[in-house]
């Protein structure tokens, strides 16, 4: 069902940072890289008021939205309590330093 697409090299995403992927059917997708080099992908729209999550600060396996500071879990796109909401997440795989996204 899903369709793996090569996106970039792992090094092109800063640690504790992110990049935006454009041109998918699902709109903009934010790719995050944690301190431990795990990569996650979320729809680049905060469940609160659609803030661009890609512009937030990444810490642990969370990102804090740049607009009003909601924390969103990178693995499943759920807002961290007490906030409630979720945003779509996408499967990512990293092979030989290359990042692939299932869109």
């Amino acid at each position, binding site marked *: 069902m899903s369709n793996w*697409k090569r996106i970039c090299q792992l090094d092109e995403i*800063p640690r504790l940072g992110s990049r*935006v*992927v454009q*041109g998918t059917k699902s709109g903009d997708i934010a790719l995050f890289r944690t301190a431990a080099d795990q990569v996650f992908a979320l729809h680049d729209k905060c469940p609160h008021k659609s803030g*661009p999550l890609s*512009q937030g600060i*990444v*810490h642990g396996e969370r990102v804090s939205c740049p607009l009003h500071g909601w924390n969103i879990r990178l693995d499943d796109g759920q807002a961290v309590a007490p906030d409630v909401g979720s945003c779509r997440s996408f499967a990512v795989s990293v092979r030989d330093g290359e990042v692939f996204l299932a869109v």
Partner: protein
Amino acid sequence: MSKPRLVVIGNGMAGVRTIEELLKIRPDHYRITIFGAEPHPNYNRILLSPVLAGEMSTQEIVLNELDWYRDNGIELHTGRQIVTIDRVARKVIADDGFAAEYDRLLIATGSTPFMLPVPGNDLPGVVGYRDLKDTDEMIDAARRYSHAVVIGGGLLGLEAANGLKLRGMDVTVVHLGAWLLERQLDERAGRMLQKSLEERGLKFLLEKQTEALIKGESGRVAAIRLQDGVQLAADLVVMAAGIRPNYALAEAAGIYCKRGIVVNDTMQTYDPKVYAVGECVSHRGIAYGLVAPLFEQAKVAANHLADYGIARYTGSVTSTKLKVTGIDLFSAGEYMGGQDAEEIVLNDPAGGVYKKLVIRDDKLIGSVLYGDTADGPWYFQLLKDRRDIHDIRDSLIFGQSLVGDVGHAGNSRAAGLAESAEVCGCNGVSKGTIIKGIKENGLFTLDEVKRHTKAASSCGSCAGLVEQILASTIGGAYTPASSDTKPVCACTELPHKLVRETIRDQHLTSKEAVFAFMEWKTPDGCEKCRPAVNYYLISTWPDEARDDPQSRFINERAHANIQKDGTFSVVPRMWGGLTTPAELRAIADAAEKYQVPTVKLTGGQRIDLLGIRKEDLPRIWADLNAAGMVSGHAYGKSIRTVKTCVGAEHCRFGTQMAMDMGIKLERMLFDMYAPHKVKLAVSGCPRNCAEAGIKDVGVIGVDSGYELYVGGNGGIKTEVAQFLCKVKHDEEVMAYSGAFLQLYREEGWYLERTCHFLARVGLDYVKRRVVADDPGRQALHARLLDSLKNARDPWQTSRTGDAVRQFVPLRVEA
């Protein structure tokens, strides 16, 4: 055209207050003439009691010195009593024949003591208690005679008796009522008061009526005879049996009077040219005898005399205190109660405390406090607000501390708020929502309340109030954290102070080292601590610590402000607020080329291009750089703007080159990061057109140099900058402001503006480090310059290399 003439009859508290209010709102409107029967400038009549008691001097109670009248162009006639108002010719005539014409007339003749109509009431030694002359006479009598009788056990009578006693006289108070202050106190409280006054040596004869005052051999009063035949020695008799509004003059002029000069809600009498204020007035049937309502009347009258015509006086609820040192007595509103009223009474004769609250329809309508008046103002507020008190009725009598908070500097607003009242204006959170959140989720800290309810999570100006609500909701379970010990965030137990000091003392130069050494609870912090730690690292070790962009908020990472729709804004620096045609042309070109939807002038004397896509930022910066422009740092915890006025360069009043000075400062501070944003202003003279009084550093040019101010803030809570020092030369302006800012950079806590920093460390400390200590100042300034030696335009450096990556979107390969 000459100005209209305003004449005031009565140089007392209400009349002069009206003029003060008028001068405040419309200073040059009238030619003002004031007539006062007393030979003094306006003084504070209330304080005659402390003067009599020997606690204050006559000089101390003067409110408006003669200079004040002169400076405001007011023609003052003291010792001239007006005897006629000629409303047809529109003039007033004094006892010596002196006349003055008016266009508007203000009558403020006050009141006169009521002299009991008994034989001998005009003997020498019989006085009312109203003015300085009476007071002097009483003081003089106390020196020469020993027996005084005060007729009347009301507030005025008791204050007179107390004063005379303190001056060594043997004083008896003769009172018609069954107990003292029977209009303010019930019998029990009256007896308590009587007892404590008796302990001070005063004597009382209650339920006694005066029959006659008896002349002695010298012609002066010598005794008083009561109706029951008792006779008392009296060399001084003070009549304090009430006051009568002084309206005979107005009545004789045909102005409608009824137990006072009748006025409407605009303080106008039946003659539209004539206004009246003060004790001589009857408003809606009430003549007030206290200053608070008279001052409200004064404000309204001034508004109408100024032709503004919008204010209305609708009457006042009053409160009184007995001014006898050592005795606390407070009463407010309808202290008498009445048929449909209920009373809550607390009576502790042994402890000397009595409290009575009068309630009608679940509202407090009156209160009497004796012995412990601390809650007086709070009750008075409840009363004036007509607050429904049924929910706090149980503990109302015990005072605010039991109802409200746990004593936050004694000023809890939280208790008085309705459930529906909006507490957090940014996020629209009501008090009810906050309480519900606290109860349902078991919240105990301000942080938890912020997270759950969003209250106080934006601008934070309501944080204090939210804390009070928290405290009153969970009571004793709440322990407020002081900012010295508040942890930076949930990742650590350590406060800012310790984190800062440890980074310095342990020579830590990376966030990894900080988190490891101080045993952070999370692997890489959070959005709150990371920016703080990053700032502490680079400000403490400018040459060693590497800035971490991923620890910066998006605005500082992208060198632009993020907008609600995810686009960004671009604000090029305009040094000191100056620009050139070439720069404006380049901005105009860029705006067209990148289809900038909004171009706006900011409050910081420069231009904002709003609504730019992130990927366009490097390109538009390149265009602006090419025209010689650099980043304005409108996005950073950094130097923002240096506002200037046109200064001595152009202005006819300018004393210093404000633009030039501002540009020099802005260049010195370029690319400077700080705990929070930093704004400066330079004005060319004290007219201060650059608003230097609300800046982190404000510079005001004066003839002999510059005045420096620090710690101002024009944002969430306006703070006026405090005077630091005066300097002579431009170089000193740079050195002193640089040193102050470096001190703030080295010792401020993250997100602490200079005003908060100053409030924490104190102005004296700053003066010691920056003004008094010459080598210390030079060293601070040198460290600032050193840390800025590699200042670069972030637009320029972010356009190329790895740095540009964040602006370039990745694309899915087909």
